């Protein structure tokens, strides 16, 4: 018997996943980071990951409020000149000291025409060194959201970039490749140890970090696992400690497993349906010569026909929050009184259609992604079925994001799914500028179907440079309310963040869906 036990023990040691030491955090996400170069991408997950290695001048704390990071204080010396006093005694991972030169070189690298992410700092014209630990940012115009922007701008090391010929960012068009795509040198709480794309990226705790660590993690082993089922299996089998995201439908199975907890919280991302405001006839019904969705009664009917409570309960497993506005509660500009949606009422919806002149319904398209949002395809199938029940003949198309968004952008859809999280700014101005302002140059980039309201267009321009925050937020709330009253979009819900972890890991789920391991503990 003793021998059997020993053999079993040996077999377990041989076959079970290698027993990691207590402070290793093995983390699986549904996708890999795109690059190690912080200015070569525009993806929030990659930003979230690189935040462990690189740091901004100001960062977000546990409540997502701004707190000093590489800058200790800041002031507006002129309406278009912001002065930052930098932290003393900070060193990069290779030992180089952090100075104003690094900030200047980083800003110049980011606003370089070749930088993929330069839109993240479009307000800044130049960076000027005042002394070794003081730097000025020169702005194009007064900018209320400068700190929001800067919290996503990671500072790189000027000397290191110069030594490795990485002062200019990579460029796909010219084939310029930079050293920074494969190597890092930041000031952050973790240091890059190794990286094999799509397989494993290992980070070690930075012993020389300027901040007092709240975490106790010595090693982060990051693995992308794209398949949902495999990711869940890897957690259940003990091969990883945290998975992001965890499929909602597997919540019960995960919670039933020993030593595993499912974590769910509302995120900032509002899922909504865009509508066709501009065309003379619907794209799915060419030749009819009319566009019913131009009529607000039809738009209201479509909204009232959607039983959101049923969708949240059944499709989202009770984990989403029904939305009446296009922004989530934590976002600046949100007003709770406005966040009320019309009651679900299919009879009234049918009556509204009849009143608008469509007693027998009409044909329209519904376009959705099947790989972008939580249970996106299932939501759309349910909505299509509900619309069909009030007499609308729905042509449902579900496709990958790579095909969906270009089609939406070309204005070839009648109703389409889109999610908006206002990231990285976390401010209600983002949908005002991008989604409900009329399409014109810098405005309405995500308003392809011709929604237009003069007051909203005015607000979009005024709020851009309004530095009195109270006034600015009042304007944004007004615009958001107009859009709601006119049913520019049909807000559906705020989708949940859904993670799962072994119960010895202490995590915080931030509503912006950032993973911030410097707040986490492994017990």
């Amino acid at each position: 018997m003793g021998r059997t036990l020993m053999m079993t023990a040996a077999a377990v040691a041989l076959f079970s996943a290698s027993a990691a030491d207590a402070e290793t955090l093995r983390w699986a996400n549904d996708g890999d980071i795109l690059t190690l170069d912080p200015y070569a991408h525009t993806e929030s997950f990659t930003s979230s990951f690189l935040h462990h290695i690189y740091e901004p001048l100001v960062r977000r704390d546990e409540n997502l409020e701004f707190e000093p990071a590489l800058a200790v204080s800041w002031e507006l010396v002129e309406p278009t000149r912001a002065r930052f006093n930098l932290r003393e005694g900070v060193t990069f991972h290779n030992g180089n000291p952090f100075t104003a030169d690094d900030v200047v070189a980083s800003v110049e690298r980011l606003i370089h025409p070749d930088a993929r992410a330069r839109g993240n700092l479009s307000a800044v014209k130049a960076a000027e060194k005042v002394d070794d630990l003081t730097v000025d940012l020169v702005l194009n115009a007064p900018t209320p959201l400068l700190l929001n922007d800067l919290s996503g701008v990671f500072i790189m090391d000027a000397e290191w970039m110069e030594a490795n010929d990485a002062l200019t960012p990579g460029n796909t068009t010219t084939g310029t490749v930079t050293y920074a795509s494969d190597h890092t040198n930041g000031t952050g709480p973790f240091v890059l140890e190794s990286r094999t794309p799509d397989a494993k990226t290992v980070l070690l705790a930075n012993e020389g970090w300027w901040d007092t660590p709240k975490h106790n993690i010595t090693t982060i082993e990051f693995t992308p696992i794209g398949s949902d089922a495999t990711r869940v299996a890897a957690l259940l089998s003990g091969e990883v400690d945290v998975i992001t995201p965890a499929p909602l439908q597997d919540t019960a199975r995960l919670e039933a497993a020993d030593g595993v907890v499912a974590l769910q919280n509302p995120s900032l991302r509002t899922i909504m349906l865009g509508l066709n405001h501009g065309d003379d006839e619907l794209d799915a019904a060419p030749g009819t010569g009319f566009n019913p969705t131009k009529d607000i009664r039809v738009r209201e009917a479509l909204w009232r026909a959607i039983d959101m409570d049923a969708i949240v309960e059944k499709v989202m497993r009770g984990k989403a929050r029904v939305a009446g506005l296009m922004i989530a509660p934590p976002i600046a500009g949100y007003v709770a009184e406005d966040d009320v949606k019309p009651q679900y009422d299919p009879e009234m919806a049918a009556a509204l259609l009849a009143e608008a002149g469509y007693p027998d319904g009409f044909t329209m398209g519904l376009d959705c992604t099947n790989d972008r949002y939580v249970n996106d395809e299932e939501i759309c199938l349910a909505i299509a079925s509900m619309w069909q029940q009030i007499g609308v003949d729905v042509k449902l198309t579900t496709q990958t994001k790579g095909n969906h968004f270009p089609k939406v952008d070309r204005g070839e859809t009648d109703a389409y799914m889109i999610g908006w999280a206002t990231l990285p700014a976390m401010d209600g101005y983002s949908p005002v500028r991008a989604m409900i302002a009329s399409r014109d140059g810098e405005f309405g980039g995500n308003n392809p179907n011709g929604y237009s309201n003069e007051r909203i267009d005015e607000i979009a321009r005024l709020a851009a440079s309004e530095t009195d925050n109270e006034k600015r937020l009042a304007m944004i709330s007004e615009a958001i309310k107009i859009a709601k009253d006119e049913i520019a979009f049909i807000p559906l819900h705020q989708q949940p963040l859904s993670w799962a972890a072994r119960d010895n890991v202490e995590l915080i789920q931030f509503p912006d869906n950032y993973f911030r391991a410097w707040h986490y503990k492994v017990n």
Partner: protein
Amino acid sequence: MIAAAAPPALWRAFFRSPKAMVSAAGALLLIGAAFLAPITAPHEPFTLGTFNLMDSELPPAFMAGGDPRFLLGTDMQGRDVFSAILYGMRISLTVGFLAVTISAAVGTLIGLVAGYRGGLLDAVLMRLADVILSFPTILIALLIAGIARAALPQAAAGEAAIAVLVFAIAINEWTQYARTVRGQTMVEARLDYVKAARVTGVADGTILRRHVLPNVVSPVIVIATINLALAILAEATLSFLGVGMPPTSPSLGTLIRIGNENLFSGVWWVVVFPAAALVLLVLCVNLFGDWLRDALNPRLN
């Protein structure tokens, strides 16, 4: 087609073989039930608006909590799984039959001609096969689906999905028949009696039909039976990669793909029943194909 042309000997062999009768009966039953889905299915799972989200994920009728309306339970949308299987099988079979028929006919013809004639024609045809073989089914399907999406009006895109899938699968698979048939034809065409027949002025078509075709039938049937299953599976795989049938009219493969996402959630009936239907179908078709292959083999008679 085979039934009409079948000699009495084949029928006698058929009625002597329990394997042949059972598999043929099973296949006919499944195929019949699938093609008569509008009659045999109790619900209309492909008609939006006929199902209700509040009926979702009900277990099979014979289990606790089951609803007698839904024999094999319901899926995430509240659709009847039994009806969805019948309708889904109809789509899978349509795709499979069309793809196999087209690819086998085209492939065999090209293989015969290329192997028999040789020379420049052979080189051109086989290089064409190389080009097509260089593009895996999956990639071809992505291309064809993309072109169809760009070329067809939105209203027709859903209806065209079957044609797109058939084309995508068939265009890749004829090469298998062609290469195999060509190899066999090259060997046969160099045998003395064929050479003799050519010299004595027997028409090429006759030689191919009389002497070469019977010898390539066996591998063609092996490939065709296995390819019917493969076509159905290829459709499922394409659906896994996002270019299969739309979720409003799921095929058997699409049902399995959707059910597979819920494997951990305890709603086993949405994946087990469609998978069982697929296995049963493929098994019957293949067993019958096996028997037919042996029965048609001149050397075994």
